């Protein structure tokens, strides 16, 4: 069976939401069991006392990327049908910085705040509420921001195309970067004073 299954019409519309629920459960379970429901653990990455986020995040991205590339190579999945997020340069950079500020202030990101909500973290609930208001504000102020939101569109480009590398080379490069990061963060973590939380 060549994936992706739903766009190929192999799985019917009725099963969509059941699968969404199951995938969500797996996602939530893994995030929570990794400790992503704790804002202080998440914030650790910025102060060097806990790099769990980075490890989980990098490992996940690399596993999925390598898996996707091999699946595509073996013809199990049609890579051309995989959604590639479009790049709007200015909006992406400004949005990312605002998210970074929100991350350090609130200690969560949307997915992890959901995990926090599920196990009863009140700060996570407040964070989610804040996010709700934030999206509301954004939507109301959209006419003001529209210019930034839609400027510098690069289309759905892949990073290896921008860098002029082949997919495989870029994947290898990213793996090496990730392994180095894992190694360095381990040293940093050992040097930084432990924080009790």
């Amino acid at each position, binding site marked *: 069976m060549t*994936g*992706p299954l739903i766009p190929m019409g192999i799985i019917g519309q009725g099963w969509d939401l059941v*699968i*969404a629920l199951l995938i*969500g*459960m*797996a*996602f*939530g*379970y*893994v*995030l*929570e*069991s*990794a*400790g992503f429901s704790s804002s202080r653990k998440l914030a650790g*990455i910025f102060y060097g006392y806990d790099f*769990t986020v980075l*490890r*989980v*995040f990098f490992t*996940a991205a690399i*596993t*999925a*990327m390598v898996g*996707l590339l091999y*699946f595509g190579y073996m013809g199990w999945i049609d890579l051309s049908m995989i*959604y590639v*997020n479009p790049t*709007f340069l200015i909006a992406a950079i400004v*949005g990312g*910085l*605002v*998210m*970074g500020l929100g991350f*350090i202030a*609130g*200690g*969560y*990101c*949307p*997915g992890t705040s*959901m*995990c926090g909500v*599920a*196990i*009863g*973290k009140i700060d*996570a609930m407040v964070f989610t509420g804040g996010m*709700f*208001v*934030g*999206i509301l*504000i954004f939507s109301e102020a*959209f*006419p003001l921001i529209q210019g930034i939101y839609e400027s510098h569109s*690069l289309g759905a480009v892949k990073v290896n195309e*921008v860098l002029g590398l082949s997919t495989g080379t870029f*994947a290898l490069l990213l793996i090496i970067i990730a392994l180095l990061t894992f190694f360095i963060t381990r040293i940093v973590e050992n040097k930084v004073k432990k*924080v009790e939380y």
Partner: protein
Amino acid sequence: MTNSNIIDRSKRYTNPYLSGFLLGMVLLATFYITGRGLGASGAIKSTVVATVATVSESHAAGSDYYSKFISDDSHPMNNWLVFQVIGVLAGAFLSGALAGRLKLKVEHSPKITSRTRLIMAGIGGLLFGIGSQLGRGCTSGTALSGMASMALAGFIALLTIFGGGYLFAYFFRKFWI
């Protein structure tokens, strides 16, 4: 804090690399099934849009931004993401229950009060909400899924979110350590 304390805690959470690997598998399965990655902020956006549309339908239809998601009711991913986030809540609850982490509390650094922490969380959520719309997705939707599919947007999001975090980390240090 004693050494045994740390080892004790380490037993509570799964090995991060194993978690990452499993998360990667979940992401891979999501790509295999839906052709898109995971997401979280999209679900909240759907909730916002739905709420606004319920309160004042004409306002939602008139707004440039809401109308993108209302008129386009054949946009299945919105609905999909809502169910996925419900799944996240259920999965996280299950994991928390199994590990005995279910407890209603405010987690904060001993140097600040719960109140400060909640205010900061609210502000953070607000900023994250705005940023996720501007950046067309959050850490899971754009950065993680985008990296896996090698989208440029994913790497920009990764660098700016964490870069932004490090940039502002100094000013917020007293809230965390």
